[in-house]
């Protein structure tokens, strides 16, 4: 199968990548760019572990073809603390104990980052609605919602 050459920006770095045409954005991020913070959960757009920002909006990267991504801007979990300083949200999820196994955390933080950008003062209902597509099987969500509320302050 022929490869397709795409150029995109990932975490502020311009990357040129040759991708198989059936490769998803998720596979490209993990396998071509070695950014393994983004997780593969369900491969069906349901669990949200693979959530990244694409042109500023959260998407399930398992549901995007890499070949479609020529010219787009992607932010992964690695991009939230580029300088080595954690974002307010990352600090909040640590201090509130919102991480257990950690598998959902990258996607959860990306969804929450996007929420706070479009709605800096969300209600609890709005927080819960924003992470409807991020499944966590450990925490029961309470401390994750606490963290997002805390970061919004």
């Amino acid at each position: 199968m022929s490869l397709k050459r795409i150029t995109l920006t990932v975490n502020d770095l311009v990357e040129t990548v040759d991708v198989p045409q059936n490769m998803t954005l998720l596979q490209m991020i993990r396998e071509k760019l070695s950014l393994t913070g983004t997780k593969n959960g369900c491969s069906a757009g349901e669990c949200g572990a693979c959530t990244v920002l694409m042109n500023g909006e959260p998407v399930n990267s398992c549901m995007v073809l890499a070949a479609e991504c020529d010219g787009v801007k992607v932010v992964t979990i690695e991009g939230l603390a580029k300088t080595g300083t954690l974002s307010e949200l990352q600090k909040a999820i640590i201090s509130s104990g919102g991480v257990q196994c950690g598998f959902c955390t990258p996607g959860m933080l990306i969804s929450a980052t996007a929420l706070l950008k479009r709605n800096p003062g969300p209600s609890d209902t709005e927080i819960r609605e924003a992470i409807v597509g991020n499944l966590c099987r450990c925490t029961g969500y309470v401390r994750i919602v606490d963290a997002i509320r805390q970061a919004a302050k």
Partner: protein
Amino acid sequence: MINPHPGLPELQYVKPASLVEASKFLAEHENTAKPFSGGTDSFVRLRDGVLKLDYLVDVKGLDGTNELSFDPQKGLTIGAAVTMNRVAAHPDVIKHYPNLAEAATSVASYQLRNRATIIGNICNASPAGDTIGTCMVMDGVLRVHGLDGIYSVPLNAFFLAPGRTVLKPGDVVVSITLPVPQEGFIGTYKKLGRNMIGDLSIVGVTVMGYPCNESPSGYRFRIALASVAPVPFEALKAEAALAEKNITEDLIAEAAKVAMESVTPIDDVRGSARYRKFMVRNLTREALTEVWKKLNK
């Protein structure tokens, strides 16, 4: 060993430069190519092996597919590449078509709705499509580009069977237009799912009502039902029952029963046919009552 995370099967990604090119390619590869926009249905089906394709034809960026605009004479036009989140957040949609925003936000999750489109929901032709009912009761008309150019299809005449529509080889749906709604209308979408995320509807009931002088009851109601027949459809007999007499609680209950009698659901993993029938009655009654109360405020 079964791979729990199958990638997409081998296929070619095709990005045509124009609608003419897209139609030509799709017609030449009738059984092996399919248009896609968000891919939220196609990718899952490709992975599961239910859908087999050699080519995925990206329609995003083609002429008219990015349009989202409201015209006080023509109504709302939604292009094939316009995502559900874009629709739900658009000020004209919130102002003139709040029921469409409600239906769109009932779909899956926020990040999925950043990819999923209304046109994709329609073209997928699932009996469960959440936004189809609203587009149907609002008399949506699809604009299709085919081998012979552009033509229009009313949504009410679009579906043939689960996954099957009147589209011919080479056809690409460019947009849908919802005419300007009737003055003072109220609409709602009641979705019964197993959970809040991702799941398809067990039953979906769309109701729209508006004052209407020509109707003996003084009102006209439109009712569309999802997940309870091979295709999404309008419950015409129930609508007729509501037009004939003064609207009362009893008449609403009667119309909901007529709606229940019009469905032909199946048993599946999400619910039994019997349960679906009863829920059509209950949710239709609930939706009609809600719309009726708001109309009389």
